[in-house]
Every structure is written in structure tokens, then in C-alpha cells.
């Protein structure tokens, strides 16, 4: 279980997160929706301390970190328990697909090379890239690069994977293959939080949907409730606008 309590974050005078509470159960797929600038990315980055929250608590099972006095070791442990998939993939450009996935296993988890290689191949096969092990990112399509990014996260066997708009940098025709992979691993019971603008995907795949606006959680609930009978006016407005703008379906 991942539990965020009272997470606050400011950049200078601007308060971007105004006290976020969020609970993610084992095996949950949580979709976070919200307008641009509402703090979705910042929230994800607070969970693995790419941004340091100003206040609040991050708990993963029994492991609790009080944001005000997180030590280097705490942060390291949090990062080992989480993995992140980035909007721009952020693959290591000088490493092949296989090396990208192995890097964390060898350097951080200190697995022997042979074992790391096995796990990395498995992860890459799972995302359908068993035939691209030795390609450099520059030779892969955006969709393939993002799938390497997912394999890199998956191989680390984290408690939770954080996805930040994993398909929004992709050409429309490549979105489907990446969503299909995420759907597949969601089906395997991996806990994840996905920030996304893909409404149809969120409705289908998420077990829980969170609507954020202006640094607060406005409304949350199971997808049929949030999409079907939203309680808050702000949620209704947002959904109305989004369904028009983002009318993909897969």
C-alpha cells in the first residue's frame, strides 16, 4: 500500500501542491487526470523525490518518510521501491535497449551481470522488444523507446510504477502499442499510478481515478463513478472539455 499524506510543494511563491492525500492499494491502477499545470507531474515527482516536498509524508508499506526530514538513505530507499516512466522516455542514449534495462539491476541492485541480463531480456520480451535487445535508442521509434522505458521500470520489480503521460510525446499511430503494454502489465497486478490525458484508457484500465485541479484532489473514485456521475462541477467541466479534445479510442 502506498499512502501520501498532506503532500505540499511550492516553487518560490507559487504553491503547486496544497496538501495531497492519496492511498493506492496493492495492485491498484490509479489514473490521475487534471488540466495542465494542476500539479500532476509534480505530485509523481514528489513520490520518488525528484522534487523534494515541503511537507507531508510518503509511505510505502511499513516504510514511512517524513518529507521534512528525509535523509539521503530514505530517499535512496524510496527510489528503489519505485520506478518511473517518463513522458520523454529519458533512455540512456549511449546504451542499448538491453543495457538500459540492465543498468539499474547491476549498478543499484548489484545483481550479477548474468542474472541482470536474464531479467532484462525477460522484461524486454514482455514489452514486445525481444528482437531489439542490442539497438540504441536512436534507432528505435518513439513507441519502442517508451516500451524500453517501461521494461526498465518493470525489471526493477518495484512496489509501484509511476507513469507521467507515457504516450503524450508519441505520434498518434504509436500511442496504441504503448497503451497495450501498460494495459497488459496492469492486468498482471502491478501497482501503478498513471498521469494521463487518455480518457478512454483511464476509464478502461484504471481501478481508481483521481481528478486534480490547482494543487488539490478535487474528486476521486472508481472510473464508472468519476466518468459517469461526477459530483463536482469542476470535474464535469473538465471531462466535458477533455472528451471533446481527446477523443481517441483504442
Amino acid at each position, binding site marked *: 500500500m502506498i499512502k501520501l499524506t498532506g503532500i505540499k510543494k511550492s516553487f518560490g511563491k507559487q504553491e503547486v501542491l496544497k496538501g495531497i492525500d492519496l492511498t493506492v492499494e496493492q495492485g491498484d491502477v490509479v489514473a490521475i487526470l487534471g488540466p495542465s499545470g494542476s500539479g500532476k507531474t509534480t505530485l509523481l515527482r514528489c513520490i*520518488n523525490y*525528484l522534487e523534494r516536498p515541503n511537507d507531508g509524508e510518503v509511505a510505502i508499506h511499513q516504510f514511512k518518510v517524513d518529507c521534512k526530514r528525509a535523509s539521503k538513505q530514505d530517499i*535512496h530507499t524510496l*527510489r*528503489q521501491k*519505485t*520506478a*518511473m516512466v*517518463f513522458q*520523454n522516455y*529519458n*533512455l*540512456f*542514449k*549511449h*546504451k542499448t535497449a538491453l543495457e538500459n534495462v540492465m*543498468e*539499474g539491476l547491476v*549498478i*543499484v*541492485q548489484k545483481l550479477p551481470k548474468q542474472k541482470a541480463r536474464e531479467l532484462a531480456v525477460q522484461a524486454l520480451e514482455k514489452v514486445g522488444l525481444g528482437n531489439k535487445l542490442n539497438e*540504441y*535508442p*536512436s*534507432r528505435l521509434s518513439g513507441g519502442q523507446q517508451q516500451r524500453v522505458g517501461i521494461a*526498465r521500470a518493470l525489471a*526493477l520489480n518495484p512496489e509501484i510504477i509511476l507513469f507521467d503521460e507515457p504516450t503524450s510525446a508519441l505520434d498518434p499511430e504509436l500511442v496504441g502499442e504503448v497503451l497495450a503494454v501498460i494495459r497488459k502489465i496492469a492486468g498482471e497486478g502491478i501497482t501503478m499510478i498513471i498521469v494521463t490525458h487518455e480518457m478512454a484508457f483511464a476509464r478502461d484500465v484504471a481501478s481508481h481515478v483521481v481528478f486534480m485541479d490547482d494543487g488539490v484532489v478535487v474528486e476521486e473514485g472508481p472510473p464508472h463513478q468519476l466518468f459517469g456521475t461526477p459530483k463536482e462541477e469542476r470535474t464535469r467541466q473538465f471531462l466535458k472539455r477533455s472528451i471533446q479534445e481527446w477523443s481517441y479510442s483504442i
Partner: protein
Amino acid sequence: MGRRFEFVYILDFIPKLLGYLQITLFIVAASVVLGLVVGLIVALPRMYNIPVLKRLSVIYVSFFRGTPILIQLFLIYYGLPELLKGISIDVSKVPVLAFVIFTYALHSGAFISEAIRAAVGAVDRGQVEAAYAIGMSGFEAFTRIVLPQAVAISLPVFANVVIANLKDTSLAFTLGAMEMTGKSQTLGLTTQHFIEVYISLSLIYFVVSVILERLFQLAERRMLRYQPELASTPSRKRQLPRLLLPQFKKGGEQA
């Protein structure tokens, strides 16, 4: 000036000059290695935005990039001992070569620091964040992710620094250092065949430059094999004109 042109002297001078090539190469190697250290040290305050040191490093870099190396040689060879005398350190026994290497190290350090800065900046922040996100320390992220890419990216600039340095060492003869150009002066004077000795000398510099250029190209192609342009153009034709006409440009312009 001098005697009538005779071709055989060219052939005669080459082996005599080659005997001093090792000194020239030693100056280049020593000053480039020191220059790397200096360059890294000087680049750090600017990469990490350290207030006063940053300003000093900017001044250092613009001075050594903006003044002729010959003047730098004179300043350090004649000026530094005076300065050190002030704090009663006597350097009159230090060989000329040490001053030469010191100057060239400071000179290349200025160019190298710019190259390092540009190259580190060229590795996008996102990769570092990805490294942090999988649990790497700052040191691991720098050495495993940023540095290998930065080195590969700055290799062309570094190659230019080395080759420019090779040619600049010829100025060391003005202080009486006995490297290849210094030797050519004596050969010219004793035989009075100046043209021939300069032809031999330029041939040697040229060949060494081309060899260095070629080696760096190989290294570059190997280290940058992850980049699409290099990975997908194994054709040799495209490289040939560059090989025959080495670009002796120096510094960070192309980075």
C-alpha cells in the same frame, strides 16, 4: 638568403628533425593531460554555479582564448619567475620545457574547460533524472550516464585542441626550447638551406597532424556509435575530404 635550393637536403633533414619529434610530442601529451585536469577544475565552478570562482574561471578562459599563445609564453617564461621571486621562490633552475608545458597546459585547459562545459550541458537533464529514479547516486549518474556521453560529444573539440597544440609547440623555439622547430633553426643556420629545412619540417607536422586526425576520427566513430548520423553512415567516401584537409580549428565553436 641561404644557398641554392637542393632537393636532397629535404630528405637529409627529415630524419634529423624526427629525432626531436618525441620532444614535441612530449610537450603536446604533457600539456594536454595537464590541460584536461585544469579544464575540468575550471569547468566545475561554472557548471555548479559557484559565485566567485565562476567569475575567476570566466576571466581565465577568456584571457587564454583571447590572447596569442606567443604572448602567453613570454608572459609566463619571463613574468612568472619575477612574480615568484616576490614570494622568494627561485625558479631559475627550472628547465625551459617546464615553462613551455605549463603555458600550453593553461592554454589548452581554457579550451578544454569550454568543451567540457558544452558537452556536459548537452546531456539532457532527463537522463540524469532517470538515473536518480532508478536509485543511482549523483556520482553514479555522473560517471555512468553523463561523463561517457560528454566525453564522446567533446571528442571533436578535444581533437582540435590536440592538433592545434601540436602546431603551437613550434613557438617554443622562441624561448630556446630544443624541440623540432628549434632544431630546424639550427639546421638552417649551419647548412644555410632554410627552404629545405622548412619543407621537411612542414611535411612532418602535416603527416603527424593527419595521423592524429585519423586516430581521433576512429575513436569518435567508436564512441559516438549510439548516434544515428554516425551509426547509419559507414560510408568512407564522406570522411575522405576531411581526412585530406584536416580542420585545424580550435575551441568550442562546433560544440
